């Protein structure tokens, strides 16, 4: 969905509750490459192992597993329900952060909440970040971790037929890429893909990208920064791999069922809606939610808001259906 006119349409208004939270971010400097070191500082609120264990509900461990050919090992955060008597389903999770920041504890509380409700394991991958590690390093790290997880399913008490990939923002793009790679390489059979406001298209030129420029916490300029960090001068060019930008894939057939959600007031709206449409067109199964007035990351920044609660509930319902043993 490309823009034919040069004039940007009016921005979609942000949901009132979300707008009130967003107001707290007014005056923050724009996201530029110069801010990456600042944003990468250790987060003092990062969950500890004890936080993740949730009073003994989960067994928590960090493991270094073999990385891609010739690359360092990949660190996986593995949280397994204690006392499970049968193999459990698993969420293989990739954090957000525009490809340039974050670690395997960022955002992991949401998949852990699913795991609490549905009796699942969570494996969160600490992929290397751009621009230090450009494509294909980050996505190959994720894939290596997935392959290891599927192979170690027996040891981990995971049912290899019930592994879903999930990711937020940049992690959502990585999750979509893993589904493509697993299909193309004959890798692990996936039970689903949870694409939460996924970052899919390096061309960064949809109506929503142009329309929402200057709005929200991840606008077109920030998106360009993220993609450029990953792809350098190739960003937006003719030769971008679908494993970097899944929107570039010519063939979306033979992929696992997807749930895609996105806000109507964010950069990624149109590329995410288009991806769902192409999954259906290819004979695939997808559930699509466009939350009205949602800015990028609304359910993470304002988890208490009414539509954030509904977005979270919709994911949980989808997972319940998808992973029912």
């Amino acid at each position, binding site marked *: 969905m490309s823009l034919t006119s040069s004039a940007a349409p009016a921005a979609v208004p942000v949901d009132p509750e979300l707008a009130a939270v967003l107001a707290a*971010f007014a005056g923050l400097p724009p996201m530029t490459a110069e801010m990456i070191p600042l944003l990468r500082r250790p987060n003092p609120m990062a969950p500890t192992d004890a936080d993740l264990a949730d009073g003994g509900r989960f067994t928590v461990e960090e493991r270094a597993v073999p990385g891609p050919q010739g690359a360092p090992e990949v660190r996986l955060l593995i949280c397994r329900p204690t006392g499970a008597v049968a193999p459990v389903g698993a969420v293989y999770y990739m954090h957000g952060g525009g490809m340039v920041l974050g670690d395997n504890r960022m955002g992991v509380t949401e998949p852990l909440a699913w795991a609490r409700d549905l009796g699942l394991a969570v494996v969160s991958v600490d992929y290397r970040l751009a621009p230090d590690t450009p494509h294909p390093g980050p996505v190959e790290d994720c894939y290596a971790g997935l392959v290891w997880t599927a192979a170690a399913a027996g040891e981990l008490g995971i049912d290899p037929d019930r592994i879903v990939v999930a990711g937020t923002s940049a992690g959502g793009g990585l999750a979509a890429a893993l589904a493509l790679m697993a299909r193309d390489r004959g890798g692990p059979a996936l039970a689903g893909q949870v694409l939460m406001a996924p970052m899919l298209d390096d061309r960064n030129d949809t109506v929503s990208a142009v329309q929402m420029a200057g709005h929200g916490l*991840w606008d077109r300029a920030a998106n360009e920064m993220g993609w450029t960090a990953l792809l350098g001068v190739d960003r937006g060019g003719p030769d971008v791999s679908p494993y970097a930008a899944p929107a570039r894939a010519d063939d979306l057939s033979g992929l696992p069922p997807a749930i895609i959600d996105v806000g109507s007031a964010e950069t990624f709206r149109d590329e995410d809606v288009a991806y769902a449409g192409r999954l259906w067109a290819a004979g695939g199964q997808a559930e699509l939610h466009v939350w009205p007035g949602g800015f990028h990351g609304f359910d993470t920044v304002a988890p208490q808001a009414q539509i954030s609660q509904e977005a979270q509930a919709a994911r949980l319902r989808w997972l319940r259906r998808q992973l029912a043993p």
Partner: protein
Amino acid sequence: MLVTRYPAEHDERVNDLALRLAELDPQASAAVRVVGHFDSLMTSRAGLQSIVRGAATLAGCPVRLVDPLRRRTVRVRADGVVEAPEEEPDAAWPSAEVSADGAVLVLERTGPVGTVEAVVLERAAAAAAAVLARTPSRGRGHDPALVEMVLDAGVDEAERLAAARRLGLPAACRAVAPWGGAGLVVAAGEEPPPGRRAGIGDVVAPAELPASWAAARLALRLTAEGTETDPGPRVVSAESLGALALLVRAADDEPGPLPDVRTLHRAAGTAPWVLATLAAVVEAPSLRGAARLLQVHHSTLQDRLASAEAMLGWDLKTAEGRLRLHLALALRRAARAEGSL
């Protein structure tokens, strides 16, 4: 994404947000953020639930809005989930007035009130007041508590006018007193509930509704079931009464029913036809019309009237006699409604 969500506990999440924000922008004080939050909610015309949710999120405790007059309670936990209250508010919880008619916003926490909590209370209450002020009319026209208030002469005029605004009342309206039901207010051009036995008050400005209500209740006393045993009009409008209203009030000041009323009442007890016949004579434009109304032969009516005249002791063939009967019938209904007969 700039801000990350960490521990599962909602309070910590909020604190996390605040902390990261303070880190990125040390100038932004918590109080300023609270003010900005509610300013934004007001600008985007957010509803009550969003306002209460904002207060709960920022204060880190459940918050409830209690609006006794509109019989509405909105309670939201600190994690944003709406949950009905299970207990009465604790008197020790900090609260702020939302409206002069008793709506309050309550933070469900004890202990000293800090700056942030105080600002949350103040700003959230102001935002909620703005919502209450602008959400009057639709669906509230029958809110019995508000209607009761607007009709009550004992209520301060300013409060009555506030209630009238919330009911969305027009500049001209009137009170309706239905038989065996709570009072209503209808717009001047609006029909009262059809088929219902009722007294209709005068058309007045909202501030004068207590007077319209008094007139409606008086008119109601002059209604009847409209049956053979209780003949008379089912709907009486105060505007049609003229001097009769004065007479009813004057009769109320008498120690007992007037002699004509007592006589009529006695006559009514002698035979089932008496009351229906007398009412028809008053209602119909002529004796022939009355006979048609009663579905009796003209001569039968003549015989009945002769008996009635004997019981009442006055002539019913003259206009004066029929007026005297008319007044006696009306005053009897009024006295009966008052329970003095």
